[in-house]
């Protein structure tokens, strides 16, 4: 019964949601609007579970003195500091250095976000510039027809986009880059989209019919 009931719930919800698309009546519309709310609540609770998992993992690391457990202290400390900063009452003032309570501009909570999270996020994202170069160097070798096509289009589009490309080679290079983007690129994109669309359709169908039940854990 532990697997049958969820399956029944899922099939019922799936069939209902598929059919409600064709029903303009307000009752299905109401249910549809409220679905989002439910997803949000379930997701929020799941996040609490997730954070319990994260913390217990790091507490376990500390307990077992696993290598690198010192960093777990830092992680846990910063988690609690950030969480606590979000629950500070509005009237608290930690001074001009740390900021105020509450979650408004200039609060400790948003200061941590703006001065710790934002720069690190931007830097992580920026590391991609390094990785994109090393990946290009390693993979763009003319080993086969396929690899050569990949290499050539990537290079043409790259040169076509920077000012120095047309400056050295002439305008044709950026025209060619634009043509590649507009024609062969668009064609294959559509083929991928159709394939993905059919894949999703068939997967959704299998879900709604209860054939695909991997998410329930452990097959049948």
């Amino acid at each position, binding site marked *: 019964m532990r697997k049958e009931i969820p399956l029944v719930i899922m099939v019922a919800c799936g069939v209902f949601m598929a059919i409600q698309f064709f029903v303009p009546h307000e009752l299905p519309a109401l249910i549809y609007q409220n679905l989002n709310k439910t997803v949000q609540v379930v997701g929020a609770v799941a996040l609490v579970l997730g954070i319990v998992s994260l913390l217990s993992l790091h507490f376990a690391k500390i307990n077992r003195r696993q290598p690198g457990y010192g960093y777990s202290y830092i992680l846990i400390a910063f988690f609690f500091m950030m969480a606590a900063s979000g629950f500070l009452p509005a009237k608290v003032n930690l001074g001009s250095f740390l900021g105020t309570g509450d979650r408004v501009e200039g609060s400790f909570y948003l200061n941590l976000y703006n001065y710790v999270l*934002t720069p690190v996020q931007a830097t992580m994202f920026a590391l991609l*510039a*390094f990785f994109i170069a090393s990946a290009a*160097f*390693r993979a763009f070798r003319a080993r086969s027809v396929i690899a050569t096509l990949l290499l050539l289009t990537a290079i043409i589009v790259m040169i076509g*986009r920077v*000012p120095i490309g047309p400056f050295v080679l002439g305008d044709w290079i950026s025209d060619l880059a634009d043509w590649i983007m507009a024609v062969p690129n668009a064609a294959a994109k559509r083929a991928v989209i159709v394939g993905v669309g059919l894949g999703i359709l068939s997967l959704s169908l299998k879900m709604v019919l209860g054939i695909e039940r991997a998410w329930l854990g452990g097959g049948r």
Partner: protein
Amino acid sequence: MSQPNPSAPTLGPGFWEKFALLDRRIIFAFIFLGLALPLFYTIRQPIPVSPEGRAYYQSIENLPAGSKVLLSFDYDPPSSPELQPMAEATFKQLFTKNCKLVVIGLWPQGPQQAEQALATALRDPRFKDKKLEYGVNYANLGYMAGNEIVIQKMNADIISTFPSDYKGNATASLPIMRGVRNYKNFDFIINFSSGFVGTREWVQFCVDRSGAKMIAGNTAVQAPENYPYFRSGQLKGLLAGMKGAAEYETVAGQPGKGISFMGSQSVAHLVVILFVILGNIAYFVSRRKW
């Protein structure tokens, strides 16, 4: 792939074999230098201005002085390297033309980006004497959740869509909002966007339905999607990524970050292409030995 031969000291097959398996940190170092060094020098490279970039500048330039302009900031900090320079330059051009600016955001962090760009633009010495005043010359109405629904709602009534501004004032009390009801009361609309919700939705739900005139600034990855709108006239101008910002600065005759960053871009692209070419030489030289 064969193992590199450690005993080969000089140029030759041994060198190329080693090169084919180059430590990626050497590439990283070249990329870093390729991006950083050009910042110290002004690299003089002609920046070819695309028709859509020129049109972007011209359509602002053609606005009558004192026009009312709506700007929507639909991006967040990760995209700011591409969009912030164009936003700053756009603000400057608009203030030079004495336009009245109303800013909104359909991304939660959009209004914050707008505040930063505004602050940079207002620091410009040219606007010192103009006494630009919040609520009169410009206003920031903040973020509103709802994506394209917000765009549609604004077509009916902007003040009820944004009841209060970014600072918590009642929108209706701002002098700049006097007589503003919907898109018809704006002479021009500018959108900076890095994805959904963004330029496409603005064209579909604002331009197509209200006939407003609009230009847009996009990230380089997103821009190709929106070129068709420029060709069909639904967009009056379009800037694409950092290159777009550089084009804009070129037309406007105001070199800024966009142009100076383009030097780094060109060098870094050349570095990548050079490494790919060398990698292929290495591949073919070392393969011949097999």
